[in-house]
């Protein structure tokens, strides 16, 4: 059977599975809808958290980013895993003991202030919307690549599927679908990785394989370093970023991970405090399987690419090369007209994507308009690392179809988790807690369902018409989470003295300075554009890493302001005493 047929079969089967689970796990109360009834086992919650966490970007993009940035890619590996240690040790157990539905619930109650609650709701909505727009786009892109439909059509299909189980099942439906989605995505990621590891080194475990030697007896990493330095690239295992910047980016990603509302609320779904701790461990274990395999795939793919194409005549290039050239993910311009591919440092094209002309060159290559002056002739889209892997390794068609189903599982599971945060923020934090506190549980559930519908429509709209800044919003989402939620929650648990004034001004200061820095240096919206270059960065910190500074500012401002203002009331100090003791966690209650 051809790839197309296999893709329809496997994707169709997985979608039927997700919908079946959704029907089986319908929500009948707000507690079901917000926290899956509070009865999810730590193992199931760990699986669901892992699927929630790993997006289309982790599944399709990360191995590619690492392949093309070598050591510098470590910031994502450490940053997106180390945050779970903070979550497990500093946040999850205490928030579970607190026993409400949302992050703004905690901020609002702990800081006895609806202003603090509102700041938290706005931050949660902003972080989740920026994040989900990219996910819906990701769903569309995966569909268009594998099923040959328009990206927009793909977004509509994705919207329909997510809506179905988010609307019916809320957190309960989402949790059990995510368990299934984790299984699909990890299987789809590991099968090609294991095959390729065996081919490259004879070792079936990719994590060990990329530290082993190939048939020629040379260690793979040494060979890759050699290939790269010979051509004038920086060695793969050395970075180009400054240590300072690597440090700050890693920290911002870790703190942001620990502060992302859609991750935190997953720990409200388990029965007990000890389950929250354990389930953070399971979550990281399941995430680590993918995150330790990705750098191995990166090395195999980069070595393979360097060896296969460098200085090879275009006429003798393997078939996968021309196939991906046809999809626009590879582009080649014979700049020195020798008929061979020169793959060198520097960008091969001007702008982000190649602009193809309708005609072909003498050798049959697709001509592009926007090739650059630099010597490098080859443009390779990073996503190809995972997408093309099965073909480069000559794996059967069903494996390629499996990768499509895995990419969709990754994108859908993350989108669903984010949509739940958005609908909960609206129905619970805004309507129930502020505008109409008297509404019945049944009515709140109806509003929650309606908010989910609204959130899907808005997210779909952003997926189809991505705002110009979507590409850079991940930095924003993590920076804002790191500079607002993380300090406010940690101080709320570990300091009895932290009060309303300190928390509010701390969050505003952290959010403010991080937004300003990203708006100025990442988006170029503020300040003199000539002064927004890399050399103008404060202390050499890139916008991606500035959330760490925002976090420090938040802590500093909060501590100073709180020491000049009144201590929190006695009831609040009792809340803090109470969340520090794990027993009698009781049910998650919203009223």
């Amino acid at each position, binding site marked *: 059977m051809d790839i197309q047929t296999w893709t329809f079969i496997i994707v169709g089967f997985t979608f039927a599975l997700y919908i079946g689970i959704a029907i089986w796990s319908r929500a009948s109360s707000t507690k079901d809808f917000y926290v899956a009834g509070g009865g999810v086992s730590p193992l199931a919650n760990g699986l669901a958290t892992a699927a929630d966490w790993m997006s289309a970007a982790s599944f399709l993009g990360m191995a590619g980013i*690492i392949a093309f940035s070598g*050591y510098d*890619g*470590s910031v994502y*590996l*450490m940053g997106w*895993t*180390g945050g*779970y*240690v903070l979550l*497990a*040790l*500093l946040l999850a*157990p205490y928030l579970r003991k607190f026993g409400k539905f949302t992050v703004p619930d905690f901020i609002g109650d702990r800081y006895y202030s609806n202003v603090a609650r509102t700041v938290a709701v706005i931050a949660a909505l902003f972080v989740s919307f920026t994040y989900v727009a990219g996910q819906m786009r990701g769903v569309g892109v995966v569909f268009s690549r594998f099923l040959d439909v328009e990206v927009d059509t793909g977004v509509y299909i994705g919207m329909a599927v997510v809506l179905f189980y988010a609307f019916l099942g809320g957190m309960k439906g989402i949790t059990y679908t995510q368990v299934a989605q984790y299984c699909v995505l990890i299987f789809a990621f590991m099968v090609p990785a294991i095959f390729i590891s065996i081919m490259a080194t004879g070792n079936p475990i990719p*994590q060990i394989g*990329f*530290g*082993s*030697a190939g048939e020629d007896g040379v*260690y*793979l*990493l*040494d060979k890759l370093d050699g290939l790269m330095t010979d051509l004038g690239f920086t060695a793969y*295992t050395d970075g180009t970023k400054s*240590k300072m910047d*690597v*440090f700050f980016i*890693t*920290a911002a990603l870790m703190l942001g991970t620990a502060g992302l509302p859609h991750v935190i609320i997953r720990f409200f779904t388990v029965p*007990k405090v*000890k389950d929250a*701790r*354990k389930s*953070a*461990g399971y979550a*990281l*274990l399941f995430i*680590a399987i993918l*995150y*330790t395999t990705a*750098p191995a795939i990166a090395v195999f793919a980069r070595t393979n690419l360097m060896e296969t194409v460098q200085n090879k005549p275009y006429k003798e290039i393997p078939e996968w090369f021309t196939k991906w050239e046809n999809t626009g993910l590879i582009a080649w311009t014979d700049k020195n007209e020798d008929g061979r591919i020169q793959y060198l440092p520097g960008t091969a094209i001007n702008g982000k994507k190649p602009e193809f002309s309708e005609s072909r060159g003498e050798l049959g290559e697709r001509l592009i308009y926007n090739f650059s002056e630099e010597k490098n002739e080859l443009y390779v889209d990073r996503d190809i690392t995972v997408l093309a892997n099965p073909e480069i390794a000559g794996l059967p068609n069903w494996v390629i179809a499996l990768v499509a189903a895995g990419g969709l599982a990754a994108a859908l599971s993350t989108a669903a988790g984010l949509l739940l945060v958005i609908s909960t923020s609206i129905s619970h934090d805004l309507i129930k807690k502020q505008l109409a506190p008297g509404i019945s549980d049944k009515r709140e559930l109806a509003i929650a369902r309606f908010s989910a519908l609204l959130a899907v429509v808005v997210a779909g709209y952003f997926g189809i018409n991505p705002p110009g800044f979507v590409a850079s919003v991940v930095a924003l989402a993590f920076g804002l989470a790191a500079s607002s939620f993380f300090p406010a929650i940690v101080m709320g648990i570990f300091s009895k003295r932290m009060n309303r004034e300190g928390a509010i001004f701390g969050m505003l200061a952290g959010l403010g300075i991080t937004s300003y820095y990203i708006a100025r240096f990442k988006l170029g919206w503020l300040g003199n554009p000539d002064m927004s270059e890399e050399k103008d960065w404060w202390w050499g910190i890139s916008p991606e890493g500035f959330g760490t500074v925002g976090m420090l500012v938040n802590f500093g401002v909060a501590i100073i302001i709180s020491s000049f203002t009144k201590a929190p009331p006695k009831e609040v100090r009792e809340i803090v*005493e109470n969340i*520090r*003791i*794990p*027993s*009698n*966690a009781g049910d998650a209650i919203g009223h």
Partner: protein
Amino acid sequence: MNTDNRKKYWRENLKYLAILLSIWFLVSYGFGILLVDELNTVRMGGFKLGFWFAQQGSIYIFVILIFVYVRLMNKLDKKYKLDE
């Protein structure tokens, strides 16, 4: 539970946190970033050690740290009769 025991329980918890988070910091920010060049002079099979910590080792240790924390806290909860 009396106030005295609460304080002791919390202090022991903070001690665990301090130890585990120091290891967390050391393997990632220490071995993986600040000391990466020094560690890269040491080799472990085909890996330079600093590079290995940045892309593999730190992640394994993160997972272990959480499970060690789970065990320590379960024991501590038992000691203070807080387990359910």
